[in-house]
């Protein structure tokens, strides 16, 4: 079974600073990887996804993520954070072959943005 670890419960950055949120997964083969964002009182919204091909994927709102097979990681990055980026971020992994493709979500990282 797959698993996801988001090591950081909270991350605090200043507006305009760069951001990296960490995600490590455990799965025997190449998985499907996702990053979702949840604003307060809202459901989760897909930021970006990786299925195959180029390991650097671009998403909405200026986010990108890089798949590193050797490190079993899929870290989310943004070069300059805006105050509106304050939210909860979830990494998810789904089996890449066979199975029901049901994703497993990490516990989330709460992003706090200081002015």
């Amino acid at each position: 079974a797959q698993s996801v670890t988001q090591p950081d419960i909270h991350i605090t950055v200043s507006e305009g600073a760069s951001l990296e949120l960490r995600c490590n997964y455990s799965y025997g083969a190449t998985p499907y990887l996702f990053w979702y964002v949840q604003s307060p009182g809202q459901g989760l919204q897909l930021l970006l996804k990786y299925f195959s091909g180029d390991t650097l994927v671009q998403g909405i709102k200026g986010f990108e993520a890089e798949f590193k097979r050797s490190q079993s990681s899929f870290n989310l990055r943004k070069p300059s954070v805006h105050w509106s980026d304050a939210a909860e971020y979830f990494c998810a992994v789904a089996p890449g072959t066979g199975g029901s493709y049901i994703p497993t979500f990490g516990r989330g990282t709460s992003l706090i943005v200081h002015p």
Partner: protein
Amino acid sequence: DARVTQTPRHKVTEMGQEVTMRCQPILGHNTVFWYRQTMMQGLELLAYFRNRAPLDDSGMPKDRFSAEMPDATLATLKIQPSEPRDSAVYFCASGLDIIPNEQFFGPGTRLTVL
């Protein structure tokens, strides 16, 4: 634009009462997921439907929870009887059963059981 809708958005009830939450998946989507989100447990999968058939409800307490899809436009999650520990935000998500499985989430139902 197409969205998953959930009703009610908020529900406060007393212990022992029946609670029904409804979800309208995006038209054309053939998979539906029910999740529960709490501070302690994070996001937990309760049930998963494909083409209206329940495929996985292993995360759901069977004695009090039930999930159904009466038709392709409606999914329901019922709790009977409700307990204070059921207090959480319940999310519905829908998607297409194609590789890969991207999910579209509704806004959630915030349930408080007193």
